[in-house]
């Protein structure tokens, strides 16, 4: 184990595991039979051992069987049990997004954003001043260790600043109520602990993982990150010079961002939009609609992410009303328009329908309200009613027909409705269809039921 560079703790754990197993078998491991292994694992499971505990045992025994005893047959009987997901060495952007989405205040989120996006240490974040942020150059000056040092600020982070502080004009970026007290450092650190323990991170959001198996490790990774300031700073920034070769890295792919469960809406907002999209794409005799496709989950999640914050949109002012041909001109990014539009819609409904919100209206009433909204024929005040309607409709259609990795089009109901075969890449076998139907089950980026042996 020393040769394999196992750490002291690992070595001790391994030895302990093997000792325990030997005691359970009642005979040395080199005389163990497959049935013994099965019995031991059942025993572990009956004790309620966690995934990670089970797999620790597996690893120790596999080493013994494979290396020490060269009994590869037995090793194969000790396959690691599949855990729902594996721990990443560093948090990827999606995971970070999940974490950020649950930061409890804007300030916390900003601090986390910077830690992740720029690789600053806790102490550096705690000592950051408004003047250190150069919105035009996308730079943060870090004077603490090396005077004059600066780090790049990815536009995503900048966008987060703008939106989360309710500021659309990038020239006005500033951190509200900066308090350079000694507690800031601890506070920043606590953000991580609190968020990870937050009951709002449900198993559904983490892909079925419980906090025990995942949160614990994640916290360690994060804590290490914050303490050492290691690693992540370079991620979004990759100015480089390439010469002599075509770069390629085995195993690396620019993978899609994924549905991560993060939410933007309040419960009331969610009800409103859920009702609205269900009228836009109803569940009816032709089959499933927006509700079945989880369009609301898709939209809620999109608004909590870079899309809702308008991070790839030009959101600098001044803002004018503009003509139809000039497109979206509201002074807030999509999430902001939703929030304002929902408030206006419920206000109008309350006034016209005796205090009832849009979601409480009958389907017929909702349709009538939406028809007026589409034409801009509702007293929405400063909120652009038609732009709001158009955006919700656009997002509803996206959520109904997108790849299921984004949370919408659940069970590919949208694709099944119209007959779209999904994320495929080869139709050469069907070029001579000559107007006849092609029978193909839809498949998503992450596959479909047919990919599992049944």
């Amino acid at each position, binding site marked *: 184990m020393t040769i394999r560079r196992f750490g002291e703790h690992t070595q001790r754990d391994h030895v302990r595991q093997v000792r325990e197993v030997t005691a359970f078998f009642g005979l040395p491991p080199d005389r163990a039979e497959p049935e013994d292994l099965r019995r031991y694992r059942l025993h572990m499971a009956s004790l309620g051992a966690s995934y990670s505990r089970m797999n620790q045992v597996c690893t120790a025994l596999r080493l013994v069987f494979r290396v020490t005893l060269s009994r590869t047959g037995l090793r194969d009987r000790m396959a690691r049990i599949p855990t729902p997901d594996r721990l990443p060495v560093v948090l990827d952007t999606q995971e970070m997004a999940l974490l950020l989405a649950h930061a409890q205040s804007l300030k916390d989120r900003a601090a986390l954003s910077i830690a992740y996006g720029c690789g600053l240490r806790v102490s550096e974040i705690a000592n950051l001043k408004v003047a250190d942020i150069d919105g035009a150059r996308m730079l943060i000056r870090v004077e603490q260790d090396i005077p004059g040092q600066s780090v790049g600020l990815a536009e995503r982070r900048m966008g987060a600043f703008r939106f989360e502080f309710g500021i659309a004009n990038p020239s006005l970026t500033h951190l509200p109520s900066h308090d350079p007290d000694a507690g800031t450092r601890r506070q920043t650190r606590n953000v991580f602990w609190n968020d990870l323990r937050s009951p709002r991170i449900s198993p559904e959001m983490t892909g079925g993982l419980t906090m025990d198996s995942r949160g614990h490790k994640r916290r360690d990774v994060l804590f290490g990150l914050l303490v050492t300031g290691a690693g992540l700073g370079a991620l979004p920034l990759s100015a480089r010079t390439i010469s002599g070769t075509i770069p390629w890295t085995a195993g690396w792919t620019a993978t899609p961002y994924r549905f991560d469960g993060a939410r933007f809406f309040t419960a009331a907002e969610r009800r409103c939009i859920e009702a609205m999209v269900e009228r836009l794409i109803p569940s009816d005799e032709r089959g499933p609609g927006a509700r079945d496709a989880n369009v609301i989950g898709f939209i809620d999640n999109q608004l909590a992410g870079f899309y809702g914050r308008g991070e790839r949109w030009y959101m600098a002012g001044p803002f004018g009303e503009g003509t139809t041909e000039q497109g979206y001109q509201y002074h807030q990014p999509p999430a902001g328009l939703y929030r304002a539009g929902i408030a206006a819609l419920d206000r109008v409904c309350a006034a016209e329908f005796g205090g009832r919100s849009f979601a409480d209206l009958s389907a017929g009433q909702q349709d009538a309200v939406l028809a007026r909204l589409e034409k801009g024929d509702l007293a929405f005040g400063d909120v652009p009613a038609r732009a709001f309607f158009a955006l919700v409709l656009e997002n509803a259609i996206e959520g109904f027909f997108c790849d299921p990795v984004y949370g919408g089009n659940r069970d590919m109901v949208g694709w099944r409705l119209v007959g779209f075969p999904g994320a495929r890449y080869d139709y050469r076998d069907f070029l001579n269809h000559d107007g006849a139907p092609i029978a193909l089950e839809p498949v998503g980026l992450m596959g479909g039921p047919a*990919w599992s042996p049944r």
Partner: protein
Amino acid sequence: MRSLIVLAGVLTIWAQPGAAQQNSHAQVERGRYITATANCQSCHTEAGGEAFAGGRAMETPFGTIHTPNITFDEATGIGRWSKDDFHRALHHGRSRDGSRLYPAFPYPHFTKMPRADVDAVYDYLASRPRVSKERKEHELPFPLSWRRMVGIWNMMFFEPGEFRADPARSPEWNRGAYLVEGPGHCAGCHTEKNLAGADNKDRHLMGGQLENWAAPNIRGGRNGGLEHWSAAEIVAFLKTGRNAHTGALTRMGEVVNVSTEEMTEADLGAIATYLKSLDSEARAPSSRPSEAVLKAGRAIYFDNCSACHVSTGVGVPHVFARLAGSNKLNDPDPTTVIRIILEGARAVPTAARPSPLSMPAFGWKLTDDQIASVASYVRASWGNNGAPVTAAQVEDVRSALTARR
């Protein structure tokens, strides 16, 4: 001690400028070619490093060996070595100070090279820029770190002596045999090793494993891995990194880039002639995957793989590998298949075939079970004869690759 250093200095002075002056361009060029046939550069160069300056970490079952600097830098390279020293290293596996070299350095093959060729390699290396680069210590456990162990190994497995032609065979066959068994040291990867890390002579060129790759059977006669390749296709593969069946990937890609791509068609033809003469063992039919696995594997294949490899597994000649009859797929050891699905693979770009056509990684997209299903499917389809792959095997490769990163 001091006098020894002075002496060494004198010898160096004698050896180096002399070598530079005496060596004709033709001799250096001859050396360059022979060096290419011996693929020295591949192991003695670190990724992104200066050629021949060493530093590459070679993972062996026994530990990690860091290759030495073989430029003629005096302090860190072989600048103080004489031609005799150099020949002794290649022929007997001894370093300049007499200590034994680890057989990761393929002197059991280089011993077959005639003295004149070894001298030419020396002259070529002497003509190259000198790079100062210290070698890292090997990471070998005791007792392997004790070099005298190698002496015992040599007694058991090492047979010094130059290549002797077989008069019953054609000159071309003999040239091919010399290149394959001598400087080319193909067996280094393509022959299974015994417990001591020496070639298992009964399984010569029938496939081996190294650094989480399975190097396939390259015997070209009856039942051999290359039985279905013509001699011309073997030449095309070695010369261009591509033929109608497949392309050279990571490890073999390096060999193509620094070695076989540089070789003459005549020498490559000789290699092909020799390989085509080697028969192999007949393989019993493998067990079939279950119908459920085949069905899932077929679906995964159709949805993910057919865009390049075509729904019938025929691939696109010279572009995307043909899976029907593929040597890699039919290998009893599925490591390479699993690995390529997990992390993708890139066909080596060469002067003749500059496109680095690459398969993307599927490790993020497919589970171990799914990879096992599709690997089992392609190993059992279109006349292929590869045993089913289990999820545990996939998991093993995945873990090994993750640990490397």
